[in-house]
């Protein structure tokens, strides 16, 4: 836009469900034609944020704009500007791919002829033409996801919300999806992508925000976030749980910050910065000297889990109860929250 306003602008957005504070004041800004990756565990508030931005939920406080339109006061204009895809399936499995897209086209108020040609256009673009007249339930997981994404593009949206678009897909389908997303951005679409996978955000996003417990706890590029996670990670399992404290003591001098130990599984890990294999050798020596028997000693790149451990002190995987309420007992420190933008 000529006035330089971002495609998505969120200021101090809050939303609670009863006692559960899903969003506690988040800020986001996504320039046109870029991808923002929103990372966070289940229940962090990602989906709530997407639902507010797509006019499905009313915020309690703060404000949000998409393409300059207020999501509350100008919801209809927002809906004309956006597409939503991901977990929520727009696909009716009993209908064919073509029928699905035609019906969506009709709901976008295209004439029948337009709806038909738009459907063909999208089926071709997403490599679904051969399967166009088969019921969508016969599609593979990757094909269904592509059809769902195609459905979100029927209205030619300027801003696309992708809510965990590759969760549950096999690696090949994921790569295919990434290609499609890159193509869309190359054409000027602005994308807000939520994901649980750091590598996905790493691959696609220009900028990443990490959300946890309704707050942006970190923002930056993928590299910056990995830097915060303490670079590479040395990880191993201690079969004899009683020796965990000894193991932690032995490797503490090698790591950057405190090692993390899971007393149930015996998994111990520590960030070792950029020292890589040197740190691995040191760890072997230190553990040997301490007489601790370990299994599966490895050096690996930091994962989202490590970012979370570092930023929040709890693991990224958090169980969500069937009623949608979040389990909050494992929450510990949030002292790094000030790091957010």
């Amino acid at each position, binding site marked *: 836009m000529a006035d330089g306003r971002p495609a998505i602008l969120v200021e101090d957005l809050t939303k609670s469900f009863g006692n559960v504070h899903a969003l506690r004041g988040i800020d986001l800004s996504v320039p046109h034609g870029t991808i923002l990756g929103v990372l966070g565990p289940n229940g962090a508030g990602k989906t709530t944020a997407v639902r507010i931005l797509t006019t499905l939920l009313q915020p309690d406080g703060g404000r949000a704009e998409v393409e300059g339109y207020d999501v509350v006061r100008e919801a209809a204009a927002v809906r*004309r500007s956006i597409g939503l895809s991901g977990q929520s399936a727009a696909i009716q499995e009993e209908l064919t791919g073509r029928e699905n897209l035609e019906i969506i086209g009709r709901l976008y108020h295209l004439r029948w002829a337009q709806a038909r040609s738009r459907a063909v256009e999208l089926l071709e673009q997403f490599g679904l033409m051969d399967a166009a007249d088969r019921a969508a339930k016969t599609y593979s997981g990757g094909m269904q996801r592509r059809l769902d994404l195609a459905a979100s593009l029927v209205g030619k949206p300027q801003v696309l919300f992708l809510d965990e678009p590759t969760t549950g897909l096999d690696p090949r389908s994921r790569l295919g999806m990434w290609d499609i997303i890159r193509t869309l951005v190359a054409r000027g679409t602005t994308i807000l992508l939520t994901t649980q996978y750091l590598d996905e955000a790493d691959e696609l996003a220009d900028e990443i925000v990490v959300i946890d417990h309704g707050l942006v706890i970190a923002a930056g590029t993928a590299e910056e976030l990995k830097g915060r996670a303490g670079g590479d990670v040395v990880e191993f399992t201690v079969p004899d749980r009683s020796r965990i404290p000894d193991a932690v003591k032995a490797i503490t001098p090698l790591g950057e910050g405190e090692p993390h130990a899971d007393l149930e599984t015996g998994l111990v890990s520590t960030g070792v910065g950029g020292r890589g294999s040197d740190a691995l050798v040191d760890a072997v020596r230190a553990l040997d000297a301490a007489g601790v028997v370990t299994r599966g000693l490895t050096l690996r790149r930091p994962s989202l889990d490590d970012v979370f451990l570092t930023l929040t002190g709890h693991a990224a995987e958090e169980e969500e109860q069937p009623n949608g309420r979040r389990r909050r007992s494992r929450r510990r420190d949030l002292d790094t929250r000030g790091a957010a933008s």
Partner: protein
Amino acid sequence: MTAIAERTVPAGPGVRARFGWAVADTLTITRRNLLVWMRVPAYLVFTVVQPVIFVLMFRYVFGGAIRVGSSVSYVDFLLPGIIAQTAAFACFATAIALAVELKKGVIDRLRSMPMARSAVLGGRLLADTLRMTVTILIVLAVGYAVGFRFSNGTVAAIAMIALAILFGVAIACISAFTGLAIGDEESVQAFGLIWIFPLTFLSSAFVPIATMPGWLQAFANNQPVTYTINAMRALALGGPVAGNLWKSLVWLAAIFIVFVPLSVRAYKRAA
């Protein structure tokens, strides 16, 4: 904030155009739901075969043991009852369909599009009403084949069918509310059995209420399904209509007044 004032908002459609789109969107969703219904053999069996089995079973299996008085044959007594029950059962599917769409995120997805938001609910009710009407006509055809006859003229016969459809739509509204409020397919199904079964069986649908124990008669005589079925029976076969029809319509109106707003609210909240 000045930027907001300067920006040009694409002109939203006027009230008339909006109403036109709401109708068009409702028809699109209706079409979608009917297409799905025709594609799934299980749904077809549920809406076509099951009511037919009920007609044949009550006509030939239980019918011989049920006395409904000397003036009327059991098949004539039975058909209005079965039609009402069929309408109620058919619209029970509304609850399940809405619960499934809610859970799968279909409703969310549709609501994020620039379509009329009322169309999801409207299209569902319209599709289910059409489906129910087809079922009712099939039951009538089978009824005719096994001896049922309208004996009160064409106008009254059409009025009976209309009352059955109205009754079914009322049940669909209750059903829509339970589906949206509960939001879980299995629970909706279990809950549906709890209210629809007693309501249809503890009525004058299949047996004269006089054959029930006294405490049950008190319930069966004063519930909406009985009023509706008695009115339908009078319309089909003759006899005094007004009393039952009046009570039936009051009940149905009350159901609409209570459950339409409840369904709409549950739908808005379901987001």
